[in-house]
């Protein structure tokens, strides 16, 4: 289970932070989220979240491989995030998307193809209804 192994802190993940439409965009600069880095990844993401904003996106477009530890870390982020923040996953590669589909986590998470499309979807959700 996650949270028991201090060894995982040895692997740091490079994360770039941007803000758009009152959402944080966290871009992961790594090709894997696996046992070696899952806890560090989760801790780093939760540390940088800004609860004053409406939500955040995890841009996983550079991630080529994820295992159950990585998946568990993303679930843990969903459960541990500030309750006021929405969470969106963007840029899932075919391999990563397959893991989400096989575990049925694609039904749990808001998943968008790209950051641009995620922002557009948010635009539509927040636009006032024309009368």
């Amino acid at each position, binding site marked *: *289970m*996650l949270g*028991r*192994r201090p*060894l*995982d802190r*040895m*692997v740091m993940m490079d994360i770039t932070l941007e803000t758009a439409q009152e959402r944080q965009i966290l871009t992961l600069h790594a090709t894997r989220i*696996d*046992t*070696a*880095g899952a806890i560090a990844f989760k801790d780093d993401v939760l540390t940088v979240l800004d609860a004053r904003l409406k939500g955040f996106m995890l841009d996983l477009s550079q991630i080529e*491989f994820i*295992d*159950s*530890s990585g*998946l*568990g*870390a993303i*679930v*843990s982020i*969903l*459960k541990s995030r500030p309750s006021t923040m929405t969470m969106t996953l963007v840029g899932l590669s075919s*391999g990563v998307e*397959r*893991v989400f589909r*096989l*575990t*049925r*986590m694609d*039904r*749990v998470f808001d998943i968008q193809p790209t950051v641009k499309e995620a922002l557009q979807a948010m635009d539509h959700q927040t636009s006032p209804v024309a009368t």
Partner: protein
Amino acid sequence: MKWTRIYSAQIGANANFANGPRDVVIRCLADKETPPLVTQDVELCLAEVFNNFIEHELEERPYIEISIFVKITPTARRFLVLDTGRKVPSGAYRMACMPEVDHQVPADLPEGGFGLALVKTLAERFLYRREGDLNVTFLEFCTPQNEQT
């Protein structure tokens, strides 16, 4: 056709211990022109088998010994993983199934339990048995010929 040993080593409590065997296996599959999707499945399943070592062994032991054998045919990629770790609890593999996630509020979502269920889903055949002091894990993946590129 005989099994070919492609990896044998003592692995210790190192977060990156799986990199060595993973690279060897992927190189072996590439040499045999394995379809990318099959390689992806093998990589994920072996990662989950290795994860079990970390979860259940390397916190308590300085190292375990692991060997990986492979048998390649035109239509299948078969792997035997032998390790000196503790015996896997009876029924653990047989009962592994994908956790229920539908209709759950986020607070109740499982953060673990997906690994072995993924292995059972992705591998054509997955067998485990205890032989003396060894865990013997067998994995088979089909390689449809028309998908080989």
